[in-house]
C-alpha cells in the first residue's frame, strides 16, 4: 500500500514540476525569439547594403524617408544633443546624424548616422552597436508597454550606405527599403 502511495505521489510530483518547467521554457522561448531576431541583425550589423559612398545630409535622407513612408504615429526630428544621450555613441565617432522619434505611442523611428572619417570601420561598428542597443532597449520598454510594437522592433531595416548606417523601424519594411534605394537613384 505504502509502495503504491509512493509511486502515485512521485508521479504527481514529476508531472507538476514538468508543467512548471514547460511554462518557464515557453516564456523564455518567446522572449528569446524576440531577442534572437534582433540579434540576427546584430550579427550581420546591417541587413542590407549600398556599397557606394554617397555624399548626402543625414537630415535630408531622414526627412525623405519620413515623407515617403506611412507611419502610425507622428514622428519629429530630435535635437542632436538628445540623440547622443539616447544613442550610446560618441560625437567624435559620428560626422553627421539625424533622428526622428515618435510621440511615445509607437516604436517607430528613423535614424541616420554617418561615421566620422578617422577610423571609419571602427566608427561604423560603433554605430551599428549603438543601433542594436537602442533596439534592445526599445524591445524591453515596449514588451509590457505596447507589446504590438514588438513586431516592427523585431524586423527593423538597418542599411549601410557607404560610410553611413540608416535604421528605420516601421510596419512596412519593404517600402522603407525601396524609399532609400529611390533616394540614391
Amino acid at each position: 500500500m505504502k509502495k503504491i502511495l509512493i509511486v502515485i505521489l512521485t508521479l504527481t510530483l514529476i508531472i507538476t514540476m514538468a508543467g512548471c518547467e514547460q511554462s518557464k521554457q515557453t516564456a523564455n522561448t518567446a522572449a528569446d525569439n524576440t531577442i534572437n531576431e534582433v540579434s540576427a541583425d546584430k550579427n550581420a550589423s546591417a541587413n542590407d547594403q549600398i556599397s557606394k559612398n554617397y555624399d548626402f545630409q543625414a537630415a535630408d535622407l531622414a526627412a525623405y524617408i519620413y515623407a515617403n513612408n506611412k507611419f502610425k504615429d507622428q514622428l519629429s526630428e530630435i535635437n542632436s544633443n538628445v540623440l547622443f544621450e539616447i544613442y550610446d555613441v560618441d560625437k567624435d565617432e559620428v560626422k553627421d546624424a539625424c533622428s526622428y522619434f515618435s510621440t511615445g505611442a509607437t516604436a517607430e523611428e528613423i535614424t541616420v548616422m554617418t561615421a566620422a572619417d578617422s577610423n571609419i570601420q571602427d566608427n561604423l561598428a560603433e554605430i551599428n552597436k549603438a543601433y542594436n542597443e537602442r533596439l534592445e532597449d526599445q524591445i524591453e520598454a515596449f514588451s509590457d508597454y505596447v507589446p504590438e510594437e514588438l513586431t516592427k522592433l523585431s524586423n527593423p531595416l538597418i542599411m549601410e550606405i557607404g560610410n553611413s548606417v540608416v535604421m528605420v523601424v516601421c510596419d512596412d519594411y519593404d517600402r522603407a527599403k525601396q524609399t532609400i534605394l529611390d533616394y540614391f537613384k
Partner: protein
Amino acid sequence: MNLEKNGNKTLKLLKNPKLWILFVFIVILIMTLAGRCTDLRSQETGNTGAAENTAVAENTAVAESTDNDISDSQSDNKVNRIPYDPNNPYGVFEGALFIGDSRTEGLRVYSGIDNAVFFCAKSMSIDKILNGKKVNVNGSNISISETLALKAYPRIYVCLGINELGWNSSDEFIRQYGILLDEIIKQQPDADIYVELLIPVTASKSEKEAGGVVNNTRIYEYNLRLVDLAEKKGLKYLNPDQPLLDENGCLKEEASTDGVHLLREYYIIWAEHLAQITY
C-alpha cells in the same frame, strides 16, 4: 501499558525510512503546488499583482540608500534656484531633476529642456522605481537612489500615475508614491519638490476607455489624491495642463495621436507652462 505500547509503535514508525521518504515527497509536492498558485494569482491581477508583490516596506531598494551615498556636493546646503524669467523660461529648470514615465520621456526628447537631469522611461511606474529599476541617466544605467545621490538638485519634478491607473485602487498608488517622496525628501532635503498632477487624456480616448481605466474620471480621482498627498507631505504641487486642454477639460484632440502622448509642439507648450507656474 497502553501508553508504552503506543510509544513503541510511534518509535517504530519514526524509524521507518519509507515513511520519511513519503513525508519528504508530500512536503515537496505542497511547496511546488503553492508556487504554481502564486504564479497564477500574479497573472490574474496583472499590474496590481506586481504592486502587491513589490517589496515596498522600509527594505526597498530606494529606502536602503543611506546618507553615505550622498556625494560631497550635497553637503553644501545652498542650492541655486533660478526664478522664472520670461526671457529665459527654461532657466527655472537649471540643475533640476525630472522623474516620470513616457510622457516625461517625451518632454525630455522634444521640449528642448537641456539643463536638467531626466529619470524616466516608457511604462515607468512607482513600483518599478521603488524596486530599483535602472534607466539611462547621462550615459549610465542607474536607479533612483543613485540618481538622487548624483548631486544636489534645486528642483525635483515628479510626474507619475498614468501607468498606475489600472491598479485595483488608488490607495496603493498613493502609499507607494508617499514612500518615493519620503526618499526624495531624505536624500534631497534642500530641493523644492513638485508633485505634478496628471494631464488628462483626449475626450475620444476617455470615452473609449469609459469602461476601462485610462479615462479622465480616473485621472481626476488620482489628481485629487495627489493634491492631498502633496499637502500632507508639505510639498508643492503643480497642474501644468491648462494650455493643453479643450473647453471640456480634456487634452486637445489635435495634441495627440493616441490620446495620451503629446505631439512635439505640445510637449514644448507643457514645458513652457510648467516653467511659468513653477514657484
